[in-house]
C-alpha cells in the first residue's frame, strides 16, 4: 500500500506530525480546534510605490536612477499617448471613426512596464495598452491608419479601431472578447520555455474585470502548473465598463489570488507611479526568466476615461471623483513633478511638444481619412491560407457584378 503511494507521488511520502500528508495539501499542518479561515485573517497585499503624489522619491534606494534621456522619453511617450487619445476620441465624436478607447490615467502602467522589457518579449494586450506600442515605436501614422482602416493599416481594415497588432514590434493583434488573450499568452510562454537558451518572456495585459472570466482562472492555473515565463499584468483601473471593482470581486483584488490561490509570485504596485511599475516589471521579468515561473503584477490605477466611446461614465461615478484622479493623482503630473525636482523639466519644451503632437495627429487624420480603403476583394482573403474554391467563385461573381454596376458603388474610395 505504502509503496504504491510512493510510486504515485513523485515527491514521496511526507509526514506531518504523526500523520502522512494528504497529497492535496502536503505542507498543511493539523489543528485540533475548528475554525473558519476568514478573508480578514489576511492583510491586503501592500502597494509598492517609489514616489509620493508630489513626485518625491520616498526611499532613495528604490529610485531606478534612470538617465534624463530615458525619463524624458517616458514623459514624452505618456504625453503623446494622452494627446493622441484626446484627438482620436474627438474624431469618433465627430463621426469620422466608429469607435475609440482612450488610456487616460493609465499612461504610467503602459510606459513603465514597456520600458522594463526587451523588444523580444511578446505582448498580448487586452485593448487599452496603446502606450506599450508607443514605447516600442509604433508611429502616429500607424495608429491613425489603423483607426481609419485604410490601405496602409497593418490590419487591412479588418478590425475595429484600436485593435492594433504589429509583428515587427512583437505585439499580438488585439482580440476584443475579454480574456481570450490570457490562456493564449500562457501557451506562447510555454512555447518560449521549450526553446533552447530562451531569453524572452510573455507579458499579458488584462483588466480586473477580465480576470473574472473563466479563461483567466484557467490561464493562471496552467501557468503555475506548467511553469511558464509569463507576466500577468493586471491593469486594475477600478472599473469594468460600469461595474466598479467593489462589485467585481470580494477578495484582495487580483494580486490576492496569486500567492494563495494559484501559487504564483505576486506584486502589487501603484499604477500611477511610472517608476514603481518599471521596478516591479524589471524584477518580474528577471524572476520569470530565471525561474521559468509566472508572476502576477497588479497595477492599481483609475480609469479616468470612459470605458469606450460607447460609454458615458458620468452615469455611474461622480465628476469630483474623476477630477481628483485626473489632477492630484494623475501619472503624468507625478512624473512631471519628479522631473521638476531633478531640474529636467522645461515648460516651454513641453508645450511645444504637445502642440507638435497635436498638429501631427490632426494632419495625419486628414491624410489617413483620404487614403484609399484596402481593395474590396480582400474581404475574401485570409479566411484560410489558400482561398477555397467557393470563395474564389464568390469573389469572381462580385467582380463581375461590380463591373456591370460600377456606377452604383464608391469604387474610387477603394484601392484597385
Amino acid at each position: 500500500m505504502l509503496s504504491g503511494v510512493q510510486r504515485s507521488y513523485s515527491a514521496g511520502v511526507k509526514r506531518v506530525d504523526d500523520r502522512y500528508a494528504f497529497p492535496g495539501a502536503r505542507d498543511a499542518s493539523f489543528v485540533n480546534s475548528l475554525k473558519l479561515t476568514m478573508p480578514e485573517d489576511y492583510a491586503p497585499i501592500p502597494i509598492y510605490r517609489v514616489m509620493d503624489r508630489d513626485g518625491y522619491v520616498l526611499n532613495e534606494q528604490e529610485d531606478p536612477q534612470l538617465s534624463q534621456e530615458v525619463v524624458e522619453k517616458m514623459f514624452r511617450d505618456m504625453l503623446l499617448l494622452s494627446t493622441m487619445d484626446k484627438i482620436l476620441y474627438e474624431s469618433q465624436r465627430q463621426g469620422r471613426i466608429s469607435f475609440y478607447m482612450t488610456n487616460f490615467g493609465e499612461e504610467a502602467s503602459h510606459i513603465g512596464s514597456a520600458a522594463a522589457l526587451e523588444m523580444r518579449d511578446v505582448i498580448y494586450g487586452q485593448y487599452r495598452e496603446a502606450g506599450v506600442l508607443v514605447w516600442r515605436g509604433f508611429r502616429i501614422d500607424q495608429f491613425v491608419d489603423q483607426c481609419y482602416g485604410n490601405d496602409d493599416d497593418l490590419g487591412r481594415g479588418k478590425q475595429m479601431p484600436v485593435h492594433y497588432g504589429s509583428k515587427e514590434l512583437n505585439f499580438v493583434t488585439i482580440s476584443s472578447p475579454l480574456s481570450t488573450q490570457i490562456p493564449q499568452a500562457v501557451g506562447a510562454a510555454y512555447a518560449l520555455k521549450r526553446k533552447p537558451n530562451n531569453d524572452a518572456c510573455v507579458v499579458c495585459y488584462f483588466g480586473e474585470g477580465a480576470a473574472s472570466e473563466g479563461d483567466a482562472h484557467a490561464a493562471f492555473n496552467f501557468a503555475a502548473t506548467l511553469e511558464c515565463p509569463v507576466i500577468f499584468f493586471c491593469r486594475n483601473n477600478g472599473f469594468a465598463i460600469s461595474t466598479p471593482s467593489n462589485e467585481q470581486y470580494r477578495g484582495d483584488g487580483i494580486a490576492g489570488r496569486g500567492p494563495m490561490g494559484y501559487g504564483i509570485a505576486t506584486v502589487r504596485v501603484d499604477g500611477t507611479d511610472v517608476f514603481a511599475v518599471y521596478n516591479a516589471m524589471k524584477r518580474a521579468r528577471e524572476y520569470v526568466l530565471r525561474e521559468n515561473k509566472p508572476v502576477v503584477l497588479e497595477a492599481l490605477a483609475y480609469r479616468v476615461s470612459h470605458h469606450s466611446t460607447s460609454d458615458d461614465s458620468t452615469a455611474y461615478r461622480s465628476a469630483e471623483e474623476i477630477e481628483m484622479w485626473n489632477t492630484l493623482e494623475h501619472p503624468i503630473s507625478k512624473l512631471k513633478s519628479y522631473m521638476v525636482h531633478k531640474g529636467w523639466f522645461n515648460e516651454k519644451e513641453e508645450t511645444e511638444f504637445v502642440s507638435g503632437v497635436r498638429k501631427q495627429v490632426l494632419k495625419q487624420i486628414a491624410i489617413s481619412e483620404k487614403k484609399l480603403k484596402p481593395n474590396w476583394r480582400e474581404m475574401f482573403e485570409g479566411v484560410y491560407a489558400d482561398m477555397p474554391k467557393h470563395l474564389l467563385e464568390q469573389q469572381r461573381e462580385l467582380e463581375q457584378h461590380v463591373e456591370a454596376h460600377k456606377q452604383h458603388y464608391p469604387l474610387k474610395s477603394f484601392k484597385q
Partner: protein
Amino acid sequence: MNDRSVINSAAKTFYMSAGAVNVPIVFRGPNGASAGVAAQHSQCFAAWYAHCPGLKVVSPYDTEDARGLLKSAIRDPDPVVVLENELMYGVAFPVDEKVTDVDFLVPLGKAKIMRPGKDITIVAHSKAVETALLSAAELAKKGIEAEVINLRSIRPLDMQTIFTSVRKTHHLITVENGWPQHGVGAEICARFMEDPAFFELDAPVWRCCGVDVPMPYAKTLELNALPREPDVTAAALKVLGKK
C-alpha cells in the same frame, strides 16, 4: 476548449490579423455518442464547427482515415478540428502497407467511396459509415446496389463526389449520428437545391439522423436514438419506392 478558443480565436485570428498571425493548430478529441454516458457526453459537434469559416473539420471513420486525416490536419496551415468517435478507438481495421508510411496522408476535403453502387447513394461520416455499409449489405440481398460515401471531411465538404454519384444513382439518403436541424445532411440537401444536380434526383433526399432529443441514458433507448441499419434500409426502400 470552448467557443471563445476555437471559434472566436482560432478560426478568426488569421483573418482579423490580416495574415500576421496564423493558427496552425489541431483540436482533436472524441465526438459523437459514446455508450452509456447519457446526454452531456453524447453529441456530435460536426455541424457546429463546420458552420464556421476559418475552421476545417474532419471526421474519420476507420484506421486509414484516422491516421491520414490527423497527419494532414497537423501539416495544414489552418486550424483543423478532428472529430474522432470514442466507440471506434478500439476497433481494428485491416490496412494497406502504404497506410503505415510516415508520409501517408488523406487529403482534407475529399470524400471516399467505400462501396460502389448504381441504385442509391448513401452519404455518411464517422461511425455512421458503419451503419451505411451494413445497410448496403442488407440492400444487396434485395438486389439493390447502394453506393456508400464516407465524407471524411465535413468542411470543406466534397460535394463533387456526391453530385457525381447521384448523377449515376438518382437517389440519395444521408446518415449521421448528429441531430437533424442544420445538420450535415441538411447542408447536403441545401447544396442540391442550389446545383443543377438537383434535377438528377428522382425522389426527395431522405435524412437519417439522431432523434431530436438529448441522448437518453437507458441502454435500449440510447440504441434506438441513433440511426440503425434497419432505419437506413427502410429509408432507402422508401426513397426507391420499394416495399
